[in-house]
């Protein structure tokens, strides 16, 4: 009598198909707090190369700071505007310009100008122009929006740094796609692999386990952004 031992592995959380971050459409990122740079980092990794229009309203500049060139290392055209409606106008204008590769707008709170119609206009313009458009929101509620992908990005304790265990290491982000037309929603732990030590410059999506531990990186999108 032969017996066969079957070792049953506990299945990890199901890995979803990873959404296409380079999709030419309107995507929205909700950031948890002003001190949370995870949304900005995730967005930056997802942006394609080339000039980017970065429009901010006054409250965002005051509360969450301004993009800092030495850290970003990108060709930015900054639009420091006062009202949220101005930000939306500038984004629409920039989407029509073939020289801009992506458009980023930051809006604080839930202004009346940022209603369903405004986001729908942006989404349709982005799709017609064929370039991604990102809306970064803080202190707002998850109100009706026509964004094709809506993300919630929060910081996650970083990986240990190589030489100094007490120092913060490479960033990790907890990324939740809570509403999407393009791919099924899901929750991931995302690491940005820069192309320095031989690895490709890409975003590495790992399933986010319920006990907040990091699973093996199982899915990586091919279209990760460059920093």
């Amino acid at each position, binding site marked *: 009598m032969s017996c066969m031992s079957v070792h049953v592995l506990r299945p990890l959380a199901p890995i979803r198909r990873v959404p296409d971050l380079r999709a030419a459409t309107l995507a929205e990122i909700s950031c948890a*707090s*002003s*001190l*949370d*740079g*995870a949304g*900005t*980092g*995730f967005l*930056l990794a997802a942006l394609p190369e080339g*000039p980017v*229009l970065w429009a901010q309203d006054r409250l965002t*500049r005051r509360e*969450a*700071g*301004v*993009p*800092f*060139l*030495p*850290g*970003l*290392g*990108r*060709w*930015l*055209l*900054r*639009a*420091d*505007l006062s009202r949220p409606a*101005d930000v939306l*106008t*500038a984004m629409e*204008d*920039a989407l*029509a*310009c*073939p*020289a*801009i590769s992506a458009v980023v707008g930051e809006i604080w709170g839930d202004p009346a100008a940022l209603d369903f119609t405004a986001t729908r206009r942006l989404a349709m313009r982005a799709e017609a122009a064929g370039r991604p458009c990102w809306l970064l929101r803080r202190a707002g509620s998850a109100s009706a929006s026509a964004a094709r992908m809506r993300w919630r990005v*929060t*910081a*996650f*304790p*970083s990986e240990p*740094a190589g030489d*100094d265990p*007490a*120092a*913060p290491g490479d*960033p*990790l*982000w907890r990324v939740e796609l809570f509403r999407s037309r393009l791919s099924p929603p899901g929750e991931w732990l995302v690491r*940005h692999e820069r192309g320095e030590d031989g690895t490709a410059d890409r975003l590495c999506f790992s399933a986010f386990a319920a006990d907040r531990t990091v699973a093996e990186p199982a899915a990586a999108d091919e279209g990760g952004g460059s*920093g």
Partner: protein
Amino acid sequence: MKGAVPDDIPVVLSAEGPHGPVVHDLNDAARSAGVRRGARVVDMRALCPALQAVPASPRGDAAVLTRLMFWARRWGPYSATDGGDGLVIDTTGAAHLFGGEAVLLSDIEARFATAGLTARVALAPTWGAAWGLARFGPARIVSHDPADLYPLPIAALRLSDETLLLLRRLGLRRVGDLAAIPRLPLMRRFGRAPAWDNPLTRLDQAMGRLAEPIGAPEPPPDFVAQARLAEPVMDPSDWLPGLVQDLAAQMARRDRGCRRLCLSVFRVDGRRRDIRVATAAPSREAGHLLRLFQGRLDELDPGFGFDLIRLAAEATEPLATAQVGLDGNADTALHLSRLIDRLVSRFGADAISRPLPFQSHLPERSETRADALRDDPPPAPRPDRPLRLFDPPEEVRVLYAVPEGPPALFIWRRQQIAVTRHAGPERIAPEWWRDSPGARLRDYFRIEDASGRRLWLYREGLAGDGRGGMPRWFVHGVFA
């Protein structure tokens, strides 16, 4: 203008007077023959049979003088015509560019001589003093005291012939005589005279006691398109496309592109309203120029309507005809400049910028605003620099300080933040060549809190560095 006629033939310019032509102006030969200005030409012919009379052209003279006035701005930012035969230039602060005031005057004289004109020049603190010294003073005088005017005849005060005659009858022959007598009787005597003919006013202007600013006219724009309307209208948008096309066609004929456009509407109630738009690169594409006015026409405030619309190109630059690519697309820089134009015309030039790296270790000075059309590559991102910067840095309250390293617990905007990991310090010293002497050094730490938020924290100063009290802590940036 002299020129074709030799100097030894007496020539006068004649103007129409009430009893036939009168002498408007004359050359030196005519003057030595006894010809007087203002006399009838027929009388002067009797005096000097060889006299030649040429009709004067006051309008042509004025045009030439206006042209010279704009040319004279090479010596100073403001210039104006002064009567029918004078120019006034405000050279305040400009003389050193030519090597001093005396050299400046010689330069003016020499350049007018090259242009075939005899110029009498003088430099004085006031317009009135310069006027008198140029006409009645010694040649090329540089005066720093309006009292230099005192020995000159009373005619140096820019007064009409009647007033001069009256002053001479009163026995006042020199400017000094007028300045010496009491003001009250003069004030009574000339109380009804207009300001430009009042000896006291003119004296005060020459002495610098009364201000006399120079109204320097702007040179007319090279390219203007205008629409005259039969009836006043409230909205120029129907006429604007035609005007823009007209202007673009004018510029295309001379290979120019505009950098600044001014749309003016002239209201029926006697007011004028202007809207100015600017472009980042010279352009004469009608569609693009038209789009710059989108959303700006509300600023016009038409009142009861306007009946004249004028579109002027205020600044133009050479712009050769460009070849559009075979795919119908122009190049990237052109599209980018168009976008910048639209954003700037809508939100103002201060709102739109392109950050470029600047050589400074202080984070808030390490980027600078630059021309958005420059084509240099972006810097490589530095992992030890944050993605976002708080401007200004936000102070935090330390709850639990650690002797070396960042605080273990601090409060930022009423939130308690516990530091779990940190790296640093990175010391950045103040820039002694820019900062005030009391500026303190900064020690920057990269920290991470329990929830994974990564911040850039710095301590300003050291305990006991003699530059203020205890060191303070600030949040300066946010990492990814």
